[in-house]
């Protein structure tokens, strides 16, 4: 994946509704009306979100059926997950070094560090 495609995919996922749509499609194909229902949104506004997701390569839409069901493009999501994994490792290591550095410059306070990983 090219880097501008990656940033387009991230931009698409920056919206909570679009993330929820992706989560819903992870459970299987769905039509626009099926997607619109749980979100309490009109079909045109759902369609707008779908267009953004489609342009970002995160979903594709069937050509054959009238309803044009949407499905997830797993490869693109995997690329994102991979980037997030790499970046998370990088930052976990970096925070380790920062913590070690901070501890080395301070007299021991007698308190253990705490980790919060989300």
């Amino acid at each position, binding site marked *: 994946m090219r880097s501008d495609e990656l940033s387009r995919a991230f931009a698409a996922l920056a919206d909570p509704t679009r993330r929820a749509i992706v989560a819903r499609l992870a459970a299987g194909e769905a039509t626009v009306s099926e997607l619109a229902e749980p979100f309490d949104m009109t079909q045109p506004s759902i369609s707008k979100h779908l267009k953004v997701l489609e342009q970002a390569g995160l979903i594709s839409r069937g050509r054959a059926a009238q309803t044009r069901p949407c499905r997830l493009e797993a490869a693109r999501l995997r690329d994102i997950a991979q980037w997030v994994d790499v970046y998370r490792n990088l930052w976990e*290591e970096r925070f380790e*070094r920062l913590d070690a550095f901070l501890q080395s410059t301070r007299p021991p306070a007698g308190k253990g560090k705490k*980790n919060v990983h989300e």
Partner: protein
Amino acid sequence: MSMNDDQSVFTITRQFALPRAVVWEAWSEARQLEQWWGPKGCSIDIRCFEFRPGGFFHYAMNFEGAPTMWGRFNYREIVAQERIVWLNSFSNERCGIARAPFSESCPLEIRNFVTFAGHAEHTTVTLRAEPFGEVDAEREYFEALRPSLEQGYGGTFDRLDAFLLQG
């Protein structure tokens, strides 16, 4: 330029058992930053450190037995002891932007948002990040332009007002 919790795809949080002012210094002072920023097995040489919005932090990354790589920050927003927003990228020797030496698909720039919170004893550092693409760069360019456009129009209307009042 802001980013709230729902918007971020990548978030990592860590708590440090130190006051906020101490943790902040590790980010805002060159001599401290160089000691921990570099990737594993790398020592950092600072070429330039301008800790202010628009400023650059330009550094060489020296790995044993490997060619030097360069990196840079372009600071966007700094609020003392609260937040730093910066674009991080690989660089060349002249502080120009460069692709990752090892990957074509690595984002050219990554926008990082780090926030500092906490009291006397503990500091919570939260880092959010996202690839910063051409689309974002364009949008930001226009956002940056807007105040000067408004000022430009504002000035015109002021003059128009003055002219009309004269009449």
